[in-house]
């Protein structure tokens, strides 16, 4: 069984952390992953930087620009992660935009992921229907979980369709926004969380965008299996470096 599916069966609320590979320094990738696992994170999204990240706010944009300047590429990332499974057990997901993956070759990319022990992919600008028509078979051949996004504007009918072709979890974007736009949730968001919870989907949901502290993490995981933090973690790394990540994580998880 894929590590993601195993993790989703655990009874706890899950914390997933996103970071941009190659930021702050090119070769920080493995250390960040190891430190995150040690500090109790359940799942990691490794951001493959892109020159034009349409769905991201200023924090992730800036980290992506820096990572690319540092020399990050798909090839370099795969090289860094080559032996990652010797030390790291938790699920690892690569999150990246479609064009770099297309240029690498979708099948080749999936093959590399599976060789290394990457468990899944999140590709925000790969549309559901294109995935379903052209790439689903390839992802499945290499045992990869593909994760789709839903938003407050996604219709119930479309959510059901996305649920039917998902094989891990559904990434619930907390509000109509790019990453890092807001913090904390109001009534509109909790109503949306409740609406989705009531749909009793086959795939568990993990909420992302706008989660930055213990309060928002607790709020989100009241309605969903877990939560993803990205921009807030990058800001932490920017200020405090990569060796202090347990301080960040323990603040999020504090009982």
């Amino acid at each position, binding site marked *: 069984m894929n590590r993601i599916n195993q993790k989703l069966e655990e009874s706890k609320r899950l914390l997933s952390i996103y970071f941009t590979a190659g930021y702050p320094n090119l070769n920080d990738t493995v250390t960040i992953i190891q430190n995150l696992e040690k500090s109790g994170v359940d799942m990691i999204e490794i951001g493959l930087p*892109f*020159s*034009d990240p*349409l*769905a991201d*706010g*200023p924090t992730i*944009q*800036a980290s992506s*620009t820096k990572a*690319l300047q540092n020399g990050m*590429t*798909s*090839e370099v990332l795969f090289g860094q992660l080559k032996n990652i499974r010797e030390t790291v057990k938790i699920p690892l997901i690569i999150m990246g*935009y*479609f*064009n*770099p*993956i*297309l*240029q*690498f070759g979708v099948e080749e990319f999936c093959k590399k992921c599976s060789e290394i022990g990457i468990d899944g992919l999140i590709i*925000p*600008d*790969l*549309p*559901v229907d*294109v995935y379903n028509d052209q790439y689903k078979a390839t992802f499945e051949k290499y045992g990869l979980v593909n994760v*789709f*996004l*839903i*938003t407050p*504007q*996604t*219709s119930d009918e*479309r959510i059901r369709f996305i649920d039917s072709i998902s094989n891990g979890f559904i990434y619930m*974007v907390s509000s*109509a*926004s*790019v990453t890092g*736009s807001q913090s904390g949730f109001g009534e509109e968001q909790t109503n949306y969380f409740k609406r989705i919870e009531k749909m009793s989907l086959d795939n568990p949901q993990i909420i992302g965008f706008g989660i930055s502290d213990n309060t928002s993490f607790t709020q989100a995981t009241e309605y969903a299996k877990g939560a993803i933090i990205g921009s807030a973690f990058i800001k932490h790394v920017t200020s405090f470096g990569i060796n202090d990540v347990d301080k960040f994580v323990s603040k999020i998880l504090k009982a």
Partner: protein
Amino acid sequence: MNYNVNEKGYYGVFGGAYIPEMLYPNVEELRQNYLKVMAEPDFQKEFQQLLRDYVGRPSPLYFAKRLSEKYNTKIYLKREDLNHTGAHKINNTVGQILMAKRLGKSRIIAETGAGQHGVATATVCALMGMECIVYMGEIDIARQAPNVARMKMLGATVIPALSGSRTLKDATNEAIRDWINNPVNTHYIIGSAIGPHPYPDMVTRFQSIISEEIKWQLKEHEGRENPDYVVACIGGGSNAAGTYYHFLHEESVKIIAVEAAGLGVDSGESAATSILGKEGIIHGCKTLLMQTNDGQITEPYSISAGLDYPGVGPMHAHLCKTGRAEFMSATDDEAMKSGLELSKLEGIIPAIESSHALAIFEKKKFKEDDIVVVSLSGRGDKDLDTYINYFKL
């Protein structure tokens, strides 16, 4: 061969809607409605009336006698430069603002490079009393001060794009992010035949008035509707799409697309996407795209801000791949020289974008009785500073 978009939003292998889920409802709403709305008699009535009374259409099809003599062929200029706001861009913004109104939107966003599309958008927003926000790269804001002032006079808010290379591609990213953040009340008026389906097709249809008029105007001049060649410059490809549209399936009409070669196709400072680009995804569509081996989008260069785009509309990528259109390019120097030549021979100062289309007469020999229609997409007022610096006027 079909050169129009298919029902899935593709031109051959190009096109589609490679968008994050956050944009799906907006783009889907547009996709489901655009053809229906455009077919409504009352939409057509308002659109045609504005094109006539406000834009000043039909734009003349002018036989350029002295230019024709010089190159020993028959050259007609389609005078989009005479439109209100000085370029073809207004055809599209008039159409899209009427679309936005029909869809119940109250807030308009747009991207702009040189500022022509920004001005054309700010203009129609003023006309309709709608809120207008224009994203423009920080570097372009500094380069195109008069157009920034125009937009402000017209009541638009100009927001600098501070990310990436701070030019047109980044302004487009910022506009898309704005749309993600404002999914309900906002319509995004894209400025060229680019973006996710249905944008390339919608923009092409609004611009197709150009070739519709060429047909009957040429009939008046020459007794026939079809020229031997239609020629246009290509940034994203909206004036070209409009110029070609009604000739796409007329086999006798040859199509020429002119890209900006900048300092030269092999100089590293160029915007000749059909030569330097590979299949990839930019701003929600699959097309030819200038990029690194690793799939990062690269910055193009041209002296003309309007041709400075790393991709090309998906229809043009298809025309290129199938060989339906001949792709040529003109360098900065070649374009500037042609711009000066048109000014001296015909008394028309063209936009530098349009000068690229004119530059082909130095590179390609036409027959004496060939009829060549060139899209004169805009006037040179906005480029005066560039002309002054280049020619030390």
